[in-house]
Structure formats: C-alpha cells, structure tokens
C-alpha cells in the first residue's frame, strides 16, 4: 500500500466531494416537479447572486424550498451516521459495530420520542434527548458486553442486539399511547424519513456535526494504534481511556443528531465505513473524512430514489438504504474474499 500523506487525503477527499457534488446536482434534477438541468443551473446561479426576481417562483420554491434543504439534511445525517459507525467500529474493535446493531440508534429514538411526548415545543430538546438516549445505551451496551473485565466481541454484539429489541419494544409501547396523527408520524419516523425538516435551524446541527467529526478526527492516529491492540497502544504512549471517551461521546452525539432529525436510517453506519475501507484502506486518518463524505453521498443517493421510485408518493429513506445497502455489502464482501 502506498504511504498515506496529507496530500493523498486531500485528493481523495476532493474526489469524494466531487462525487457528492454530482450526486447533489442529479438529486436536484430528479423529483415530481419537472425541471431541466439548465433551469437548475440558472436557478442556482441567480440564487447565489441573490437575484431572486430572475427566478420563476416555482423553481425557487422547489429548488431552494424543498430539494436543497432536504439534500442538506441528507448530507448531515449521512455524514453523522457513517462517522459514528466508523467511530464505534474502532471504539469496540469490532467490524460489525454500528449505531443500529448496537441499539444506540434505538436508544436515541426512545429519547427523542420521550421528548416529543413531554416537551414538543422546546427547540433542541429532541436533539438533547436523543443524545442522552444514545450515550446511555452505548454505556449500557459497553458495560453488558464485558466478560471478566475484557470487552468480548460476541457478548458485546448480543448485548447490543438485546438492547435494541428491548428499546424497540419500549418505543412500540409508548407509541400506543399516542393519538392517531402522531402515531402515523412516528411510524414514518421510525423507518427513517427526510421529508420533514427539523424545526431547529440546520446551522446548529451542522456545527455539532463538525465539532463531533473533528474531535473523532483528532484521535484518528491513536485509533489506528488502538486497533492493533490496546496494550500496544498504551505502550506507545496513547492515552487509551481518553481517546475512548472522546470517541464514545462524539459517536453518541452523532447518532443522536442523525436520529433526532431523520429517525432510524439503517445500514449507512455499517456499510459506508466498510466500503471506504475496502477502497481506501484501514487508516483512520483517511477513513474518518472519507466515511463522512461517503455517508453523505449514500444518503443523498438513497433519498433521491426514495423520492422518485413511486412518485408522487414517497418512500421512507430507511427502506431504500436497506434495499440498496445489503446487496452492495454482499458484493464487496465476496469481492474482497476472492
């Protein structure tokens, strides 16, 4: 393998951002309202220059009111989920770790649901509650996954699966107490849905994303060492417990963030980091940014399909990620085995 240099990280990330950009343009083009690529370019160009009056009001509404905010939300959620997946895989030294497998997403969903029931009007309460739910579940799974003081891979996964099903049952139970209208909203949300943007301003959510991804990124070379073995890393001067704490908090925060705005979108946290590993190698200094951008690409792509496959009705994006994610994963796994 070629040595990893900052230059290489930069170029790979630039290429990925380019792919994301193409995906965004494709996604802007697709939808129930027909707009040609030329009109989109015209709308974006005039929009960027602040010339509202030159844009037909329909184009303005569809591009700036519906599609771009949704894409922005998708990028946020995809980046958060993929990065937290990569973080959990390093933290638990388990390639199958992912916010959904570990029940962390269910914990976040339960927290978000409780805040929706008891404090629906407080801005940011959903995000805070989702973070608390995610962090508490991560802690519980981490604790339950130990065997004789050591983190055991199989026990950990079992603990995660059991937590997930327990928390889902709790969500179902709470769901029956909701009125019909909220129940429908909740059912859609549990499947993962980007069609209803959050009441909170995207600014703050992006800020949280950047801080959390950034803090995981600062530990990336330490994570590389931890992956070879905690003892070895400790001998090389890595403050293992500090690194783990940072990743633990940041990954929980990212899961809570994603779940609070878009519900449970599965597979992204598991598959995107693996795909990135298969393509670019296992170095976390490249894997973290590559996963973040890759997750954004995956969600924007999946959501474009969700909006258009059975138009004008929309599918939950979670269904699309599962449908598209599983075959891709199997293909890549078989290819790498060969």
């Amino acid at each position, binding site marked *: 393998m070629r040595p990893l240099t900052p230059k290489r990280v930069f170029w790979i990330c630039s290429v990925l951002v380019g792919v994301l950009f193409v995906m965004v343009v494709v996604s802007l083009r697709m939808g129930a309202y027909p707009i040609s690529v030329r009109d989109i370019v015209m709308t974006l160009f005039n929009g960027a220059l602040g010339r509202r009056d030159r844009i037909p009001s329909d184009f303005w509404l569809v591009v700036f009111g519906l599609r771009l905010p949704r894409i922005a939300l998708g990028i946020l959620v995809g980046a958060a989920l993929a990065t937290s997946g990569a973080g959990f895989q390093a933290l638990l030294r388990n390639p199958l770790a992912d916010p959904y497998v570990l029940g962390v997403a269910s914990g976040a969903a339960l927290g978000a649901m409780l805040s929706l029931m008891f404090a629906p009007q407080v801005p940011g309460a959903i995000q805070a509650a989702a973070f608390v739910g995610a962090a508490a579940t991560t802690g519980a799974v981490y604790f339950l996954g130990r065997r004789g003081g050591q983190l055991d891979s199989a026990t950990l996964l079992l603990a995660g699966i059991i937590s997930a099903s327990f928390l889902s049952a709790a969500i179902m139970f709470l769901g029956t107490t909701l009125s019909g209208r909220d129940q429908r909203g909740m059912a859609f949300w549990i499947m993962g849905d980007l*069609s209803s943007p959050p009441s909170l301003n995207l600014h703050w959510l992006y800020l949280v994303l950047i801080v959390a991804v950034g803090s995981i990124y600062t530990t990336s070379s330490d994570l590389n060492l931890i992956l070879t073995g905690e003892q070895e890393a400790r001998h090389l001067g890595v403050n293992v417990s500090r690194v783990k704490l940072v990743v633990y908090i940041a990954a929980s925060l990212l899961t809570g963030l994603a779940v609070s705005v878009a519900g449970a979108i599965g597979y992204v946290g598991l598959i995107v980091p693996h795909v990135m590993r298969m393509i670019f190698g296992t170095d976390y200094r490249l894997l973290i940014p590559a996963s973040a951008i890759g997750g954004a690409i995956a969600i924007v792509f999946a959501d474009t399909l969700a909006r258009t496959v059975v138009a004008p*009705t929309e*599918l939950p994006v979670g269904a699309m990620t599962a449908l598209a994610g599983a075959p891709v994963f199997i293909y890549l796994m078989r290819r790498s085995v060969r």
Partner: protein
Amino acid sequence: MSLAISREAFLFWCDTEERLFTPWRRLFTLGIASALLLSAAAQASTWRGFPTQAMVPGTATRVVTDEVGRTVSVPAEVRRVVTLAPNLTEIIYALGLEDRLAGDTNYCDTPPAAKAKPHIGSPVSPSLEAIVALHPDLVLATTSINRRQTVDALARLGIAVYTSDPRTVRGILDSIARMADLMGATAQGAALAAQLQARLDALRARIKDRPAVDVLFVVWEDPLVTIGQNTFIADALRWAGARSVIESKQNYPRVSFEEVVRLEPDYIVLTMDHEGAEENAGASLRARPGWSQIRAVEQGHVAVVGSGMDRPSPGLIDGIEQLARELHPDVFAATTAAMSSAAKEFSICVR
C-alpha cells in the same frame, strides 16, 4: 482485507509518516472542511422563510384559525384547492366546487370523477413538490389521516393549509361549513350542513325512544381493530342509536377476541371496503375460530354498512341512516307504514 495490520509494518509506518501529519496541517484540512460545510449551512438558512401569498402585493387575504389552532392566511379568492384526504375530496364534490379542485390523493375514489384529477401521492406521504406544482391557493388536510409534518412543511413553504379535526358528527358539519366559507361558498356550505343536520334530526326523532344497541365496530378484522370513544365514528354510532362497547382513550385500539366475548355486543358492525362485500363479510367473520359462538354472530346480528361510515364526509350521514335502519328495523317498519298512510291522507286532501 482485514482490520489487523502487522505490528512491525505499522510501527515503521507510524514512525516515518506521522511527522507529515503535523497538527497544524490536520487543523488546516479540518478548517477547509468546516468552511465548506458552514457555507452550505449558512446558505441553508436563507432557504427558510418564503413569502406567503399574503405578502404578494395586490392579493387580499383573510386570516383564520384552523381546527388544530394554527393561524392560516388564506387568499380571499380561492381558485385552486388541493385535498390531502379522500373525505375532503368528497366534501368538495358535495359542495359542487369540483372545478376548483386542482389535485387530490391517489386514494380519492368517491365520486369516481375524483380519480381523474391530478394526484399528489398518498395522504400519509404526499409529494410536496407535486403539491407546489399545482399552485394551490389552499390545501385542505385532516388529522384523521395526514401527518403533522406534512402540514408543517407546506406551511413553511408559504402555502395556506387548513387542517380539519372532526371528533363528532356535528364537528364534521361545522367543518364542512367552515371549509366552504374559506372557498367563498358560504351559502352552499351552510345549506349542505343544514340539510345533513335535518336528516340527522329526523333520524333522532324516530329512534329517540329506543334504547341504544351495544355494538362492536370493526375497523379491521385481522388483527381486530375497533374504535375509541373520542372518534367521530363513536359519535356516528350514537346518532344511529348504538353505543360502542369498547371504552378506550386510543382512537383505533387493537382489542383481543376475549374482550369481545366478555363484552357481549348485541351487534357486530362491519364496513364495506369494496363492492359485494355484504355477503362475504358476515361469512368470513363466521369462519374465524370462536366468532361463530359469539351471541351476536349466532343470531345473525352482523350489520354491514357502506364505506361512508369510516370517512368524516357527507357520506357518513348515509352510513348512519343505513345503520339505524339495520339496528332498529321495527321502528322503521312502523314509520314507513305511518308515512305511507300520511301520504294517502295527503293525496286525499289534494283530491
């Protein structure tokens, strides 16, 4: 490729390459990424806040409060309406305002002409783009099937959305009158509501001395789903001289078969989902294990009413009348006889 890297190679690699990753370079990369993302986020903020029709000069608007307490600013002249539920489409047609119906949902099938209108998707997950493309002056939604998020998103785009929240039959009539008023058809709305109310009053006058029949209203057979006391269907049952045996705060509770056995309803009420279900419904219920032993089924007390019964629309009154006739046949037999004798007298007078 595995996660594990040979330790020696790894340590060597760390030694030579780590120096290239000086902290400031790392921060620089992070900074660029942050700047990119922040600029995207900053732009995202300008996408919020769309002018409502109210702000477009030259268009008069009126501000109303809808049935869920939202303030809605509706253009004074509503020319294009989009409905988000089948019952709302039915109301538009009943008011004779179908010319203004710009679009409806994939499920709008009553009257059949509604199927030919442009569709905007299903009531639960409609395409917002398709709604925008229809340029509606007003979008009608209902709490009985639409999601709050859909209404929020449309409102954020500056589209006027009126949400109806009927909990009683009377509430449905009020809601019809109010929606008609919004569309500038106040007289039609009042007339339709009054006409439906007159039918209900006439029905009540006939069956007021009859004790209420205990019924189990079946929304869904398998799993068994029924209605709670706070739904318009429970109120419709009261108008039809019946009472739902299930006491539930949930709107559409799932109940166990044991509960049905325990409560011993006098009648089982089913709705007709499709044509020709009348004979099948009773038969399929009897075929279910245990059901044939229930007193109501044994005695053949299974009432099948039209699909109007589970829609908060003018068709509901038809359903109520039909159900009342099934549940209180003797009253109707007597009054039909009385009516015909009255008619005779009338004809004698005329002569």
